[in-house]
């Protein structure tokens, strides 16, 4: 399944019942140098649109929202030592957390890459 995006600049990859979530290249560019990432513990239940993580840059601290509801299974251990991965590889090694989906139909409202690129261009 291809990557989907939210209006809050998170991306989500879904494979089977599990999904990987991160923030987009546009988001990291707006944040500037990321200095700290606060990630959810495995087992935490998150709801679509609710706070799931916090990303702190030299400019500001921002909430990262869960694109869909589910239960966190793992957060990216590499970000604790090297938060700059969010800047250098936001849509790859800089992923935030993985979760199991509780309602796959919540994916329906999300944007595909073309729609997200058009959304960013409109900002």
């Amino acid at each position, binding site marked *: 399944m291809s990557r989907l995006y939210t209006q809050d600049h998170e991306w989500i990859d879904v494979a089977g019942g599990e999904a990987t979530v991160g923030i987009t290249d546009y988001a990291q560019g707006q944040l500037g*140098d990321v*200095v*700290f990432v606060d990630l959810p513990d495995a087992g935490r239940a998150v709801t679509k649109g609710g706070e799931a993580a916090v990303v*702190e840059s*030299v*400019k*500001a601290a921002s909430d990262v929202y869960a694109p869909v509801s589910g239960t966190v299974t793992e957060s990216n251990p590499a970000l604790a030592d090297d*938060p*700059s991965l969010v800047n250098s590889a936001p849509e790859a090694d800089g992923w935030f957390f993985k979760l199991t989906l509780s309602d796959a139909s919540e994916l329906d409202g999300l944007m595909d890459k073309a729609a997200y690129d058009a959304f960013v261009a409109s900002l």
Partner: protein
Amino acid sequence: MTTAMNNVGRPTRLVAGTGAVAETFTGNKALMLEEPLLFERGSLDTSGVDLPPVPPVPDRLGGLGRDAVIGLPGFSEPEAVRHYTRLSRQNYAIDLGIFPLGSCTMKHNPRLNEKMARLPGFADIHPLQPQSTVQGALELIDVLADWLMKLTGMPAVAMSPKAGAHGELCGMVAIRAALDAKNDPRRVVLVPESAHGTNPATAAFCGFTVENIPANDRGRVDLDAMLARLGPDVAAVMITNPNTCGLFEPDLKRISDAVHAVGGYVYCDGANFNAIVGRVRPGDLGVDAMHINLHKTFSTPHGGGGPGSGPVVLSAALAPFAPIPFVRKTATGLELVEEDTAGTHANQSFGRMVAFHGQMGMFVRALSYMMSHGADGLRQVAEDAVLNANYILASLKDLYTAPFAASGPCMHEALFSDDFLDGTGLSTLDLAKALIDEGFHPMTVYFPLVVHGAMLVEPTETESKANLDQLIGAMRHVATQMLADPDAWRTGPHFAPRRRLDETLAARKPVLAFKDSEAA
């Protein structure tokens, strides 16, 4: 270009295009002196005082005495004096120039306030003195409380909170206590995007669930969204007025009425009261609790110059839950009520927030400010603060992006975004650094978050038109040059004691203590 190293290990070189040498041999720049750290300069072997050898003393520390030297360097008296004087010259202060930090209200701290605060009857008393010996001090607290209640149109005030966020805590704990007294389980607090960032933190700390209310395109609370969200689960609304975009919230009364209709309370963040003091009484707008930053509105020093003080005015509904202690008039004089009993306070106080009664030194300064200005003078304070901010807004809005200028005048601070720098690769940060080179403390940057690359300029009423014109001139010059020749502005400041620091490295790998590599 020369590549010689100067005495502090940095290359001396020419500034491109000017022919000027950027680094001197000593690292000093004319009379601005480069100053090493104490640990780099001092020696363990020197001392400023000649003490006789210590005679042997019996160890009474039970083996817990220090077994290694602390390693603090010693200095002669002139060395120590010069070290701190040199450091102080690298600092910036309101006594040096305009300090246009939006949301902070860096106004002049009148010297009369300082004189009053140093009167022995105020300066040399102790909180544990018998109350009969400090009747004047208690009267000062009582008179200040009366001014605060009159200026806000509120029936009660808690004087002890020690800063703005501490005042928020006081107000929200009082709301929680009022709900608990009714066994009311509601726990949702609505906080608009235009509120101060401490508001949601305070609500969360008090055990409430925070929900955001969006701002509208005029930088105010979205009234429809607010009204639509109100319901029986809403404990309170926390609203900042004037808000953090420097704009008055004209719908506050309607919001208050609607919140009260569903059984909730209204907390107003009064950090920006300086824009409306003498003009608007928050009590008339239906506010239940509001903190007042004496260190902003009433000119007491802050930002390293002194402690804050954040008294909280309370509505009749919240007054019974106010913290102890408080001053009460009795037949024989004034009394500081330290215990909450049925006879004094309906036995409903939520308790004590601080050891004693608050920031006495700030109370003296604030009352000095109020009495020297008078009621008419305080009204003019607000009017001049708003006038100065609008002068800046009007003088810059053709060049800087002013996102809310179309919705009318601002209050005490003017908000700009860096959208006008689009395409240059420059942002608010570069502009702030350029202002340092021009000799100004930059404005507040990247706050509030509701606009891109925010620049929040609060001149305060204490700046003259000439000072404002100088700041405006510098801001226009810098912005015009940044648009004309962006590349020259990516590396500022060029003339400050330090150039652009690596904020990212400092945040990712902070070094918070000096470690002497030789001693370690």
